[in-house]
């Protein structure tokens, strides 16, 4: 059958019949070699190609492209959300910093006041302490002096009594000793 049709394709085109459809069919078959089995074969070829391209190229690549578009879209949405969050965080951070600054300033001021107060207290305490030390030192010095004076007086009285006994050549009584000492001390004190 195929050979017959092919043979027809290579033969001369029949004379026009006046029927458009028949003449067109004759032209297609006899002049241009239209052949039903080959036409069907080419249809099948093309359908197979379309099927393969759809299954192995456009399908997977289309899915991949759609997935990538979705990812980019989701990424952009996330980026926008991140930008919003970042702006909010920056705002919150700025407010927190401002609050912290104010608190820090207040604390510093408070600390400065407290330090000044403490310093003053400590200074006063030191002054008082120094004063006490000085008073004690003065008291001690005074006591030492008085003790020394007393000892000096006793020694001087003894010395005078001894000198008087030696010069007078007599043994002095306790009353003599007391009188001599008292007179000697009066002289010294004057």
């Amino acid at each position, binding site marked *: 059958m195929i050979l017959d049709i092919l043979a027809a394709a290579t033969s001369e085109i029949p004379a026009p019949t006046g029927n458009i459809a028949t003449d067109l069919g004759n032209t297609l078959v006899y002049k241009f070699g239209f052949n039903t089995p*080959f*036409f069907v074969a080419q249809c099948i*070829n*093309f359908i197979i*190609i379309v099927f393969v391209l759809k299954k192995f190229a456009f399908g*997977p*690549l289309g899915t991949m*492209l759609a997935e990538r578009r979705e990812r980019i879209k989701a990424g952009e949405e996330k980026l926008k959300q991140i930008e919003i969050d970042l702006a909010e965080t920056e705002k919150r951070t700025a407010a927190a910093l401002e609050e912290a600054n104010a608190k820090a300033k207040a604390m510093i001021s408070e600390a400065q006041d407290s330090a000044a107060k403490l310093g003053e207290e400590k200074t006063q305490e030191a002054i008082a302490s120094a004063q006490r030390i000085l008073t004690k030192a003065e008291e001690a010095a005074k006591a030492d002096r008085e003790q020394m004076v007393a000892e000096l007086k006793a020694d001087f009285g003894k010395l005078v009594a001894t000198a008087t006994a030696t010069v007078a050549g007599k043994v002095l009584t306790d009353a003599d000793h007391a009188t001599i000492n008292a007179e000697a001390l009066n002289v010294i004190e004057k």
Partner: protein
Amino acid sequence: MRFASFITKFFLFALLLTPAVAAEGGHKLPLYAEKIPGLIFTNSMIMTWLAAGVLIFFALSASKKISVVPEGFQNFAEWVVESLYDFLETILGDHLVKKTFWFFSSIFLFILVTNWLALFPGVGTFGFNMDSSHPLPFLRGGNADVNMTAALGVISSLTWLFWAIQENGIKGFLAHIFAPKGGGKGAMAVVMIIVFFVVGVLEVVSIGIRPLALTFRLFGNIYAGEQALEALLAMVPGFLKFAPPLLFYFMEILVGFIQALVFTLLTAVFLNLICDHGDEHH
């Protein structure tokens, strides 16, 4: 400027000379594809299979190691697919392109690859009786065979009909063709109904002719290109044969692309026209 002028003159000269060379009984490509002796298929069918092989290789390579971050061949395949998708989306719109992209892009790639494969050395030049007035080349451009272009035209028209009815429903489909647009009252409405019915009949004739128009537009352009190349080859004897058709090869590369684009564009526009309800909303 001088170069452009030279090119124009060369093409005009070649076009004028082509029929003369062919008529002299030189190397003339027959109008129809022929069966290779001893085999049950034609020389153009071999080219169709080669094109199918190239496209299947493309499809398998593209989806072999598919990943979210594209590398190597996937980049090229994605560029092809995305460019086609964006192009078809501008014609068909978001809804239709999702449904029909696979078909229109397959048509485009198939016609493009078939047209360009036909330009490879050896196609149409090796075969039986090549020096006679009735040569039989082993390979013939896939779209230089009316059976192939008719298959494309008929399948495109059938898919058009299927999607047109699917989108509009049978009633909507018929209304889209025959129903009067723009309204009107009284006698004007009757006139409009008659006018649009006649327009609808013309539209049906136009729809009926479309497969034939698509078939012969593609066949004519590709066959004419191959014929021109064959004739130009025959212009000069010996090893200088390569020179005359050289510039035409560049043009044929462009023609191959344009014809693939035109076929895809027309079928997509036809579908968009029948599925477009924009006029009903305004």
